[in-house]
């Protein structure tokens, strides 16, 4: 078990490293020019642009830049702005070209908002999705089943941004059924109330895929011999479904659940943008518009770490669900 975890951790580290190198190459060696986006050509002449590049350190060879960046992650580094030296402690993700704030600040102050949104949505989609899925599986082939599954397919087939936009427009802007997002500093009550709308639409739309996973997984396990054995013991049908059927059906669902939560934690670009939730997804989107390389790098790295950690959690968690994995 320990060697298994160690091996997995090693693997996780190498995935993060690979992501680091790839994103660095893609963004720093790519066609983007942060100097231009800071100061468009019609306002700055060539020398001015070059000066900005030197200032940002973009004139140096890519390898040097990479080594600096890499070093910063582990031991921190010093930046010079207009003759002043600023220390950036490990893990140093640098400073935003646009706001001048440290990337760590930019991301970590926003991360809690993303986490709250992701977890509220996750609660909604697991409860709604799994419940409807079980129901459809038990009633499979019936009209109820067809309505539930057909409905979830239609709902799931509409592009998410359209649903989210309509939802925001009607529920929040026009009818004011649900309140607008406001920052935590304005009070916990209004903050969480403001999260309901984005969490609800995100959760409901995501639940459609859980309905289908759960239904399929349940139908498969309900046809298993051990479910028949369970029934033959004289236990209640509810117990057969939950303690025996669902227990076995949960394996694949938990795997997907872990990865989905990880994906939500890396920022829900569309949801955060539409509902103006000040999370890391929205910040990443802004950074992309701005060619704000350090912030882009920061969000990508953070996402990689989250995904890798959740993969690990899922694998270890799975071994607790399935005893056959645990021992081998």
């Amino acid at each position, binding site marked *: 078990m320990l060697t298994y975890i160690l091996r997995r951790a090693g693997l996780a580290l190498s995935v993060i490293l690979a992501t680091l190198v790839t994103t660095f190459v893609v963004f720093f060696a790519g066609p983007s020019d942060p100097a231009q986006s800071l100061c468009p050509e019609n306002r700055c002449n060539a020398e001015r642009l070059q000066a900005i590049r030197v200032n940002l350190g973009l004139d140096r060879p890519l390898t040097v830049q990479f080594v600096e960046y890499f070093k910063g992650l582990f031991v921190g580094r010093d930046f010079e702005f207009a003759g002043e030296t600023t220390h950036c402690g490990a893990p140093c993700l640098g400073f935003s070209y646009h706001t001048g704030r440290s990337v760590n600040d930019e991301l970590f102050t926003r991360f809690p908002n993303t986490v709250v949104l992701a977890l509220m949505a996750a609660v909604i989609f697991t409860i709604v999705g799994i419940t409807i899925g079980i129901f459809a599986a038990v009633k499979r082939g019936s009209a109820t089943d067809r309505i539930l599954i057909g409905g979830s397919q239609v709902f799931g087939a509409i592009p998410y941004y359209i649903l989210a936009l309509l939802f925001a427009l009607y529920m929040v802007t026009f009818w004011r059924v649900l309140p607008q997002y406001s920052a935590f500093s304005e009070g916990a009550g209004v903050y969480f109330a403001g999260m309901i709308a984005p969490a609800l639409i995100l959760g409901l739309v995501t639940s459609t895929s859980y309905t289908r996973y759960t239904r399929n997984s349940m139908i498969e396990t309900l046809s*298993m*011999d*051990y479910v*028949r*054995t*369970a*029934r*033959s*013991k*004289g*236990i*209640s*049908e509810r117990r057969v479904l939950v303690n*025996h059927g669902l*227990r*076995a059906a949960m394996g694949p669902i938990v795997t997907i659940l872990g990865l989905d939560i990880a994906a939500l934690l890396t920022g829900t670009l569309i949801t955060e943008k539409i509902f103006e939730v000040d999370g890391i997804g929205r910040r990443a989107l802004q950074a992309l518009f701005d060619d704000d390389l350090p912030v882009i790098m920061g969000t990508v790295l953070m996402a990689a770490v989250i995904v890798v950690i959740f993969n690990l959690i899922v694998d270890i968690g799975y071994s607790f*669900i*399935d*005893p*056959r994995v645990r*021992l081998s």
Partner: protein
Amino acid sequence: MTASTQQFTTTSGEASQAGDVVLDVKDLSIAFPTEEGLVRAVSDLTYQARLGRTLAIVGESGSGKSVSSMAVLGLHNPKRTQITGSIKLDGNELVGASQATFQKLRSTTAAMVFQDPQSSLHPFHKVGRQIAEAYRTHHKVSKAVAHKRAVEMLDLVGIPTPARRALQYPHEFSGGMRQRAMIALGLVNDPKLLIADEPTTALDVTVQAQILDLVNDMQKEFGSAVILITHDLAVVAETADDILVMYAGRGVEKGDAKEVLARPSHPYTYGLLQSIPSATDDGTGDLKAIRGAPPSLLNLPTGCSFHPRCDFQPLVGAACIETLPEWRPTPGLTNRQLRCHLEDPVATLQNDEGAK
């Protein structure tokens, strides 16, 4: 004893002593509506199982052995199954019975050991817990007491270090151990009827014998009725008191197990016996498989379902193709019933045997 004593039925209430009928199946038909049509898995099946006796149900694969037995526990989805006729389990009519009725009778009055021990235990639950759950469902006891009972049962079915084993998962058990655990599960509530559905097919030969011995021992210990489903006639010879031979969802011959094997009176039973090596064989006798294949249950042959494969049909003629033979006592034998138009089946089959 005459054939009519076999038909004797307890009229009401509880079977309590050896020989009492615990399961009385009459004209049972089970069909599954499917996209291709109606699958008639069981047709007009009639048999009884008695306390203290082992009834073997034999027949080729697909003859409806499992389907008919599962109906006793109500394990078919009522929405997808058409069941007619009567199943009386210890006085309770089960055809059309509610789920609540079945829940009460499962495990306490009738229990089943399923065909495949590999897949019949829940892979995520400890073996002891699976047995304890069955006990607790029908007895108001604490978890600890139920667990103790589970350990006792594991001990009873010959699992060494049962206390440790109870805390293990099925994948830590060998195939034979799992089947022992299934038998422990089947017997935990001391049922009057234990149905063992091919309990040994998935196991290797030495383990097979042990499991059969166990089933026999358990029957003596608990005094229950046992239905042993198998296609292994050697198993029947060793373990069963009575036998029911099934073909394409119908019973075709029934009687005393050893007598039927020694002197079959139905061409199908005869064919089955011809197709296995017998203990008395010197190895030179030809084994002869029954020609052809079992019929499609979607479209059963008219008359006697066996007629397309029967070597003796020409002796009878059109009747086999046109009329379904009814149960009747075999001429010349006591305590034997069959469904066949042959005038003197015993003599006919003996002549055939002699001609070889």
